[in-house]
């Protein structure tokens, strides 16, 4: 009896895994486009609780390639002041994973670009990892970036569940990551890699330096099997352009949060912001 059940579950899993790999919007995107990809980050619930869909639609209208929606957290250790403050504001506004999933329900009627959720592991654990993955699949989230869930712990405890629901887990590398660890991350990733531009938290880097270019060169020379985008410190056309010379594209986060804080969520404003980055 037990054995039978196991076999059935494994078979289902295999079928699901095959389905999810062929249907994943992220792999589709990278198979269609490999240069100057732009992903924009915004914190769910900022500036206002119900801005999520408005911002998503405007970013899609502005032709960004994909988005990372931040799941706000009380203690975002990898984030600088701008993202921290947007997290705090979003929590004050009442944002939670439950609310976010409710907002995203039905978003796939008109949002076709890939959606990633980005945040910290604790709220996901409290939501329940399986529940979380199931909800992601249900509303059409393609992957997650959880900076405080290292690859080893992900593989040991959560990879099976994530794969079962076809949710990608995106790992990061930084200038201090050793070559052997980059190889390991590349081997275990199936989507893309998030390349952190410098030893830093979000929003704290100014411009691109020589040592940064050396690091970009070093990674480029490794010919990784996964595409990778550069994030942290990408805040204008110049930095986006530099990143795109070395990688498949770049992430913009803090700069967009500042834009929302100063100019609000109007579609025109968001289009203009994205155009300035892309130029």
């Amino acid at each position, binding site marked *: 009896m037990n054995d039978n059940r196991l076999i059935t579950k494994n078979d289902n899993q295999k079928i699901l895994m095959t389905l999810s790999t062929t249907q994943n919007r992220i792999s589709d995107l990278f198979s269609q486009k490999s240069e100057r990809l732009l992903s924009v980050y915004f914190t769910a619930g900022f500036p206002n609780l119900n801005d999520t869909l408005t911002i998503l639609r405007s970013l899609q209208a502005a032709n960004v390639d994909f988005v990372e929606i931040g799941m706000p*957290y*009380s*203690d*975002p*250790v*990898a984030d*600088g*002041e701008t993202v*921290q403050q947007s997290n*705090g504001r979003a*929590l004050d506004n009442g944002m*939670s*994973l*439950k609310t976010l999933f409710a907002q995203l329900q039905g978003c796939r009627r008109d949002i076709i670009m890939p959606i990633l959720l980005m945040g*910290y*592991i*604790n*709220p*996901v*654990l*409290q*939501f329940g990892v399986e529940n979380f993955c199931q909800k992601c699949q249900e509303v059409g989230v393609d992957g997650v970036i959880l*900076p*405080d*869930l*290292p690859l080893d*712990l992900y593989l*040991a*405890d959560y990879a*099976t569940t994530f794969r079962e629901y076809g949710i990608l887990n995106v*790992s*990061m*590398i*930084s200038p*201090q*990551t*050793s070559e052997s*660890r980059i190889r390991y991350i590349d081997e275990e990733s199936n989507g893309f890699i998030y390349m*952190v531009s410098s*030893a*830093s*938290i979000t929003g*704290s880097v100014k411009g691109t330096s020589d040592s940064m270019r050396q690091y970009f060169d070093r990674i480029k020379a490794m010919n990784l099997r996964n595409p990778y985008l550069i994030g942290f410190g990408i805040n204008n056309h110049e930095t986006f352009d530099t990143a795109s010379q070395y990688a498949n594209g770049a992430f913009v986060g803090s700069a967009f949060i500042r834009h929302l804080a100063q100019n609000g969520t109007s579609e025109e404003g968001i289009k203009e912001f994205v155009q300035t980055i892309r130029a």
Partner: protein
Amino acid sequence: MQTTIEPQTSFEVTNKGFYGHFGGAFIPEMLYPNVEELRQNYLDIIADPAFQAEFWQLLEDYVGRPTPLFLAKRLSAQIGATIYLKREDLCHTGAHKINNTIGQILVAQRLGKRRIVAETGAGQHGVATATVCALMGLECIVYMGSIDMERQQPNVDRMRMLGATVVPAKSGSQTLKDATNEAMRHWINNPVDTHYIIGSVVGPHPYPDMVARFQSVISEEIKKQLFAKVGRETPDYVVACVGGGSNAAGAFFHYLNEPSVRLVAVEAAGKGVSSGHSAATTALGKPGVLHGSRTILMQTEDGQVTEPYSISAGLDYPGIGPLHAHLFESGRGDFYAITDDEALQAGFELSKLEGIIPALETAHALAALPKMNLQPSDVVVVCLSGRGDKDLNTYSKHL
């Protein structure tokens, strides 16, 4: 199925950094090389005879160890059991915190680090860190919640006098948890030349184990001293307060595998466990991840970390070290929650009975004694983790 959380009967950390379900290293990739460098080297560094010699010499000549184990006769008579006080309050800088900072600065030197970053709540760990940085001539940056800086101005002045830069943590609730976040961010931004001296048995592996090892001098001395006084190394109870839990980890360390010794951990109930103003983590928390380890954590239903409260700045931390979470879950430790008022009263009592003014943190441990159903034949060691000078402002409001 979940390979990292196999049931564990031992109280030693696994090579992946787990105590039972708790521990690990939940850190951003940007911190991985730093933490990994430490993990790969700390055991060898500590085991090195030259390190050992320098560490013990400093504990003896600079910290003032061994600290006395004092038979508190009048307190014993009042409680109705034999109570010994392990006098960590007599350490240089006034608390056990310096045992750890001495150990870690020697590790930092051997890793070739030039700068030290630390977090502090009440300022005791900050002072202990600034002290060893002055001693070794290393640059010292201490993050402290801006609210705590106002509450603990004398310790801010001490740190500055010792040459440290004290940086206000202005994010979040502006207390210990946020100071820790800021120290971690600083470390992310300065990964090569900086060592982060965490002040308690919290944080990513190997910190909880490394800090526990440096603090284990407390129970090592208790064993010898108790044997000399009563002819056995094992008391019936060891009692210590727990914020993150470093003095408790040190006092429990050599008794973890001695089931005849009950380990008593005392948390701060603040204005009452159910008052909404409490730091009684095991009573109020659930498993979660904070500051790099899976532990028991005060949090909302959505997994947002709750701001704790206690009259004692050293105990208002929303988590506990993973070792303590394991002691709680496995039943190896007895956990008590003591209110502000009970702690204040115990502080006043010890002052009058024994002529020792305890830190408010320590007063929580003392306040648990009447609740423990002690028998006249029981031998109890209380870790007197710190002295109360820093708390005179608070005490004097209740005189």
